[in-house]
């Protein structure tokens, strides 16, 4: 422990803490831009500069360790002036289009400009000009709005370990981009959108599908239905200043009905469906002893990563479609037939916490008779915008129930949105399938939480089943390496590309509040806990669906409609024919 003085307040701090952390512990906020919690500081943006006595220059508080007796000023005139200058310089080389910007009102640069009272353009110079990259079906990259804080590159390289974007060139020409400034769609990017969550400005954002959804709702011929992912209900409240982790399921359903959707369904229904299919597939593979370990395939980011980087491992992926694609497939086959609607007229919208799902819905193999299973995907953020346009006061909405039959779900489906949830849900069903008994204690605490790799051994009928939960795509390479070397002991592995699972997906509300992931996670486990039915196979609508349509899990029909296939998308080693100079 060391004692230091910050703004004349005596502060006790632990060794190795930074001035920024010490200041925060006594309620002094220091602005940051390039700083990312839990990652090594870079000290690049200098906005967190503070004055330390006997130091000639201002120091970056995010990278300056505390030491005994230092005197820190976070709010001296010199500090304020320096920060204001930094903001002024950033603002000057930034497109002056806040009014028509997607992040207007939720932009860190805007907030800083406001806080430091930037009221005039004191500097004038050359502006950077870069084209917007709209090549990807999920995301847009607008380097002109980039302030080069580097948070996206660090999330991409250090947390997700994908490394799709990085700084290139230097000086005024510096730009965060893909190799050879190619489009995101042909880069290594898996479109997980973690970079969007950390981007202080609108340099990275989702590609909006609001227009096509609005058109479909207003179309006279289309039967527009919507489904909501489990993770959205735990996070949407944040956009309306409700406390972190508020469950807004009822209001969400009411709001979507008021938007004009004919039916509001729950992706949780098909999450239960996914579990039945996946548990069946797992048991099949274990009895046959082939293609083990089996990976979950709910996360399209993980699927994309596997296809691009590990094309030789695709046989390990479960062939199940992801839940929202299954829901769409069931809607356009079973539901259309049952209700007597032409599948061509059904327009399925998914509200997802995810940006990759936009890309996923455009995959040609996820379709029935040339009709895509899901027609449009909206992120949580886009839904808020739709609500705002429609004049829906979200917080005043009554609680309403989902439409049936594709709206019923069990507690097992609710936890799909968090890391470890799919695993837990699958185990509850697999236990029943293998033993014929209901599992008494359905809570698997070992697979919950936010650590990178969670493992457990479950004993079913005297057989040990080794499971692992990979929390974040950055952790998956070591698991894959073990499998390649034939050393892997696992039978079943869940992979979620985003750290924390869908609750921290790239389509979720953008803010830097701490504990957002853990609060959303708690909300989902609370939904699970209060459900009467907590095992997927107990879902009554689902039992009817199998009775009337699919027969049983893994049947020919379910393989046709609920399963998919993957492609090796590695960049093939091209023949090297260089021109010698």
């Amino acid at each position: 422990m060391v004692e230091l003085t910050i703004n004349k307040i005596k502060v006790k701090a632990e060794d190795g803490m930074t001035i920024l952390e010490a200041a925060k512990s006594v309620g002094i906020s220091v602005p940051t831009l390039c700083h990312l919690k839990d990652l090594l500081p870079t000290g690049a943006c200098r906005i967190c500069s503070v004055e330390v006595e006997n130091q000639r220059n201002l120091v970056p508080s995010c990278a300056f360790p505390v030491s005994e007796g230092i005197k820190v000023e976070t709010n001296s005139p010199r500090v304020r002036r320096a920060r204001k200058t930094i903001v002024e310089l950033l603002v000057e080389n930034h497109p002056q289009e806040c009014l028509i910007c997607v992040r207007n009102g939720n932009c860190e640069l805007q907030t800083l400009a406001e806080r430091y009272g930037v009221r005039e353009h004191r500097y004038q110079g050359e502006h950077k000009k870069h084209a917007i990259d709209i090549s990807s079906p999920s995301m847009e990259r607008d380097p002109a709005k980039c302030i080069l804080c580097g948070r996206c590159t660090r999330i991409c390289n250090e947390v997700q370990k994908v490394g799709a974007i990085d700084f290139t060139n230097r000086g005024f020409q510096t730009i965060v981009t893909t190799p050879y400034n190619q489009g995101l769609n042909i880069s290594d990017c898996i479109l997980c959108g973690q970079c969007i969550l950390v981007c202080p400005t609108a340099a990275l954002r989702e590609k909006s599908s609001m227009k096509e959804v609005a058109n479909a709702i207003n179309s006279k011929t289309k039967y527009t239905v919507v489904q909501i992912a489990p993770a959205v209900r735990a996070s949407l409240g944040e956009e309306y200043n409700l406390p972190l982790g508020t469950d807004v399921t009822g209001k969400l359903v009411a709001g979507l009905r008021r938007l004009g959707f004919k039916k509001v369904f729950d992706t949780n229904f098909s999450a239960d469906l996914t579990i039945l299919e996946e548990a069946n597939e797992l048991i099949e593979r274990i009895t046959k002893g082939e293609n083990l370990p089996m990976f979950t395939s709910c996360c399209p980011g993980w699927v994309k990563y596997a296809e691009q980087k590990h094309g030789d491992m695709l046989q390990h992926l479960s062939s199940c479609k992801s839940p929202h694609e299954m829901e769409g497939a069931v809607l356009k086959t079973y539901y259309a037939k049952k209700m007597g609607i032409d599948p061509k007229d059904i327009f399925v919208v998914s509200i997802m916490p995810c940006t990759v799902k936009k890309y996923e819905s455009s995959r040609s193999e996820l379709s029935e008779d040339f009709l895509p299973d899901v027609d449009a995907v909206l992120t949580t953020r886009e839904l808020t915008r739709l609500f705002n346009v429609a004049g829906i006061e979200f917080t005043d909405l009554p609680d309403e129930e989902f439409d049936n039959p594709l709206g019923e779900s069990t507690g097992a489906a609710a936890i799909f949105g968090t890391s470890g949830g799919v695993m837990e849900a699958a185990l509850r069903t697999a236990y029943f399938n293998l033993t014929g008994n209901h599992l008494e204690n359905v809570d698997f605490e070992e697979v919950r939480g936010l650590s990178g790799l969670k493992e457990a051994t479950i004993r079913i009928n005297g057989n040990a089943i080794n499971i692992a939960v990979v929390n974040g795509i950055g952790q998956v390479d070591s698991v894959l390496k073990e499998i390649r070397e034939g050393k892997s002991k696992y039978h079943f592995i869940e992979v979620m590309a985003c750290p924390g699972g869908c609750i921290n997906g790239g389509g979720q509300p953008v803010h830097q509040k701490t504990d957002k992931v853990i609060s959303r996670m708690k909300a989902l486990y609370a939904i699970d806990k209060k459900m009467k039915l907590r095992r997927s196979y107990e879902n009554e609508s689902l039992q009817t669906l199998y009775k009337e349509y699919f027969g049983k899990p893994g049947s020919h029909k379910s393989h046709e409609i609920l399963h998919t296939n993957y492609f090796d998308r590695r960049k093939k080693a091209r023949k090297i024919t260089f021109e010698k100079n």
Partner: protein
Amino acid sequence: MHQDIFTKYTPNDKSYLIPLLQDIQTIYGYLPEDALSEIAEFVGIPLSRVYGVATFYNQFRLAPLGENVVRVCRGTACHVKNSSNILYAIEQALNIKAGETTRDKKFTIEVVNCIGACSIAPVITVNEEYYGRIGVKDIPNIMKKYQSKPKVEAQKKTEIGTEKV
């Protein structure tokens, strides 16, 4: 032809990135795209980072050099003697920007910080020849001199062609 380079280094060690890039450039005169991917895989870092390093340093080139390399000195003495105008004139004459190569691969313009011939500023070099105390007016003539030089390989081809006839 560059596979032997990799044997000199241990894989998955970031510190070999720049030596590898230099070696590749020594062989090809520039950094071909496929070689960058190979280096990324060998060193164990993403291609984006390799590309970032390759574009950060002036010594690395991502496109092959033209037949004639025009180096324009932008050092202090030359700057005082209006070398920015010289550079602009060359860019206009060749219709490319500094750092680029013409479509017919005849010329590449490079900006150099100091050639070391300040006494004859402003100075440019074309290949190994120096042109000092030049003005904007001299540029077209100098460029023309190299433009008209027939390409050696092209000459050979025509010879073969005539033989056949």
